[in-house]
């Protein structure tokens, strides 16, 4: 019997039209437009706002100028800061902590499990401005909860946002995003047949051995997925702006905040667009790796 189609090609095209238009205008066109703008000296105000000149690679030369590349507040400094931020807060912080949280959740009582998961997920679902303000209060020098605890323990308090701003955003982002890795690993662990662990229990394996020798090899695909996704998100995240505004003196100015400052504070759209292009190229590399793996997955799951 011939399989008849439920929706003719024409009706299908009609169904696709609204989504195509929206995605086209607000996702695809910006992709090409940002490349175009990065070759101009477009600004927000003045003559070059209406009639920008084509400047070739000048914006890119300015970004990669070796004389200022590593200077604080310049592109190179921001790029390196962002890489450190991603390595520490996503790859080490969120992924390892998420793994630990998921593993702990497997082996504690249901009450404790729901307490743990609620706390971790609350950090993740609340709106970012609320979280930013909560941390501002948490880190306050005179009255903040953190310094209150440190004083209570007899430890010296600190003005963390001024003294260690980079570590603040690293811990902040780890705390904020660990829930995703935890949930992904939770569902990964649940996909492992319990009999594997029971057999290991009979053989007297420790929890660490079970994690290392049974669970981790089986969820390798999930681990890779997790690492790529959280890397991409952390690389593009803007939330630390709400806590530090990129300061003090550019010490927490990751690339997303740098782009914002160049484009919307200094009004240099051309240069801001060039930063955007670099960000997109890095995103593209990660996305291609991810899609390649995600496409392979059905085979791997056999």
């Amino acid at each position, binding site marked *: 019997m011939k399989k008849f*189609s439920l*929706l*003719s090609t024409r*009706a*299908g*095209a009609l*169904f*696709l039209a*609204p*989504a195509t238009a929206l995605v086209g*205008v607000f996702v*695809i066109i*910006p*992709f090409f*437009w*940002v490349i175009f703008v990065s070759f101009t000296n*477009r600004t927000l105000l003045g003559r070059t706002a209406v009639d920008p000149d084509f400047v070739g690679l000048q914006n890119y030369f300015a970004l990669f100028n070796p004389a200022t590349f590593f200077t604080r507040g310049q592109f190179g400094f921001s790029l390196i800061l962002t890489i450190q931020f991603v390595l520490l807060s996503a790859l080490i912080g969120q992924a390892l902590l998420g793994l630990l*949280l998921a593993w*702990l959740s497997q082996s504690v009582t249901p009450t*404790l499990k729901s307490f*743990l998961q609620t*706390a971790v*997920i*609350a*950090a993740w*679902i*609340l*709106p970012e*401005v*609320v979280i930013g*303000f*909560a941390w501002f*209060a*948490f880190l306050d020098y*005179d009255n903040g*909860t*953190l310094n*209150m*605890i440190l004083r209570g323990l007899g430890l010296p308090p600190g003005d963390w946002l001024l003294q260690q701003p980079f570590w603040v955003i690293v811990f902040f982002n780890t*705390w904020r995003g660990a829930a*995703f890795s935890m*949930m992904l690993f939770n*569902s990964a662990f649940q996909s492992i047949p319990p009999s594997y662990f029971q057999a290991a229990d009979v053989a*007297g394996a420790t*929890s660490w051995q079970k994690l290392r020798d049974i669970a981790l090899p089986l969820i390798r695909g999930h681990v890779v997925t997790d690492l790529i996704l959280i890397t991409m998100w952390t690389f593009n*995240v803007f939330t630390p702006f709400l806590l530090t505004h990129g300061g003090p003196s550019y010490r927490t100015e990751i690339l*997303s905040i740098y*782009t*914002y400052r160049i*484009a*919307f504070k200094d009004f240099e759209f051309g240069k*801001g667009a060039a930063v*955007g*292009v670099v*960000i997109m190229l890095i*995103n*593209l590399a990660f*996305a291609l790796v*991810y*899609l390649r793996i995600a496409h392979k997955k059905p085979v791997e799951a056999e």
Partner: protein
Amino acid sequence: MQKRTQNIFVRRTVFAAAATFLGTVFALPLVWFIFAPFNARAELGLAIPSPFTLSNFATVFENTFAMQALLNSLIQAAGGVVLVGAAATLAAYALSRSPIPGKGAVTYILLLFSSVVSGSAAMVPIFLIISAAGLIDTHLAVILVFAGGLLPTAMFILRDFIDAIPRSYEESAMVAGASPLQAFFDVALPVIRPGIVVVVVWAFVNIWGSFLIPFILLRSDKLMPASVAIYSFYSEAGTPIVTLLAAYSLIYSLPVIALYLFVNWKFGFRFFGGIKS
């Protein structure tokens, strides 16, 4: 054998202690939020309110600017959600059911673009496109930008969902004489509904909580959503008016918490919520 039992006991205790510790560490930055909204003299320090009072909320409710901002958040989130929900459902259905050539490629390209064109990379061109369209400082600007940005993922989730529904549902309806449109609206749509709910909740939470897009696209106070308006609760010296901020933050967070509980109750918060832009 006894040693074994002892080991298990020790292990359980260590695990429970670790879980309690980590849970507490995660909760600590938020504990302040449980008390400050109900304390008329709240400061940045942790303090149990004495007495518990709702006066901070009363102050917020009297602040027309603050209430307008919540309404703006609602307008922008609702507008975005309607667009995303409708366009994504139609598109996902077409991708799943119609014989359009190159469907696989479309999905692939959409996913690629949506992950490459992030808010931080595209803030300049998005601002320029909205400028060129004359939409700067309008609700519509925020709604459209979010609809475009969230659609690829929404379509992807819904397509998976529709692919899992047997075609025989609509086929039998059409054998019985229904038109393709009737098959879509009367047969397929009710079955897809849980998927749409998930997408709609996800989109709502994303738009409701976002800061960057309205921050760069809006200028006038009367259009600001709560996420941006919250920064007006600072005194002229730049210090936050803590009592107002705390109460307002709680009100502003309530829809997100309610939706989370709803999804959790209805579907189990497994992995739907795992997809976040």
